[in-house]
């Protein structure tokens, strides 16, 4: 019953997130709304860690598993990309390096400024 109760709480939050997504005037992923909702509930202690911890632990630790069906769908969608593999791989590699460099630069600079201004050295 413990797991079922935890599952009930988490799924209720996600179900609520789906409802909120329908009410929004723009397309916003319901999974992200549920994530924010759960975060807010945890911060306000409306939901306690022990009330959902086992289920969220299981989901987080096996996160990759739940993406298998989405990945398998490539079977029916490889046609538009079949002859574009090489340029797509180039885009993939270049953007990954660019994203790393820009994030590191911006975060590093902010951390340095924070240290300078606040004196609270990291």
């Amino acid at each position: 019953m413990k797991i079922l109760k935890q599952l009930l709480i988490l799924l209720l939050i996600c179900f609520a997130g789906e409802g909120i997504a329908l009410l929004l005037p723009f397309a916003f992923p319901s999974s992200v709304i549920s994530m924010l909702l759960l975060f807010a509930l945890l911060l306000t202690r409306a939901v306690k860690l022990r009330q959902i911890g086992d289920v969220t632990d299981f989901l987080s630790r096996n996160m990759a598993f739940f993406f298998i069906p989405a990945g398998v769908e490539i079977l029916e969608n490889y046609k538009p990309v079949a002859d574009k593999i090489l340029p797509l791989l180039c885009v993939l590699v270049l953007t990954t390096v660019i994203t790393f460099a820009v994030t590191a630069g911006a975060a590093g600079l902010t951390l340095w400024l924070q240290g300078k201004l606040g004196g609270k050295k990291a």
Partner: protein
Amino acid sequence: MSAWTDSYLFGIVLSIAAFALGVWLNKKTRLPLFNPLLLAVVAVILALQLLRIPLDNYRKGAQFISAFLGPATAALAVSIYNQRKVLRQYFAPVLVGCLAGSVASMVSAYALCKAFGLSDELAATMLPKSVTTPIAMAVSEALGGIAPVTVAAVILTGILGAMTAPLMVKLFHVKDPVVQGVAIGACSHAIGTTKAMEMGEVQGAMSSIAIGVAGLVTVLISLFL
């Protein structure tokens, strides 16, 4: 074969078996390219193709697994909540880093796709590839991309990030563990985070926070595209 596999259990059994195989092979070889998810997807596709099992038979059970994508994403809130002390201390660098990184990722993906002469559909497919799968899928769909191809791009990006993170840290002289973690999480989400965790506790924590923040920033920006 087709009648037997036309069962709700078939897709679930095949997925779990494929994932167990992927995890086992990954542990045995310790090769970053042998990512459990990548191996599992390849194993399922091979099984379906070799045994001539219709994709619809697989989908019958697989839809129950996909139903947990939302809850699995929501569960990220717990890991961010567990890191709330670190997050409070480094809130500004995480936010600024993820904001700049997400913009750079989306702009560079779109610009490079266009530079290589790829279609708008493929550009929309590649645009959200640096963030975690459920968010990337949702953004890709909303922008008119091909979601399953986005999933493949996200996985490959993650694997690439996990493989090259130590190299990029050296290349760009990133010495601070906080900055290392944020950069790894922002460019290669959960798969990159596995590498960040190997590099250190601070890197791992910052990287997992960056998954959520970069994902959120990417969704928010995509609303204006």
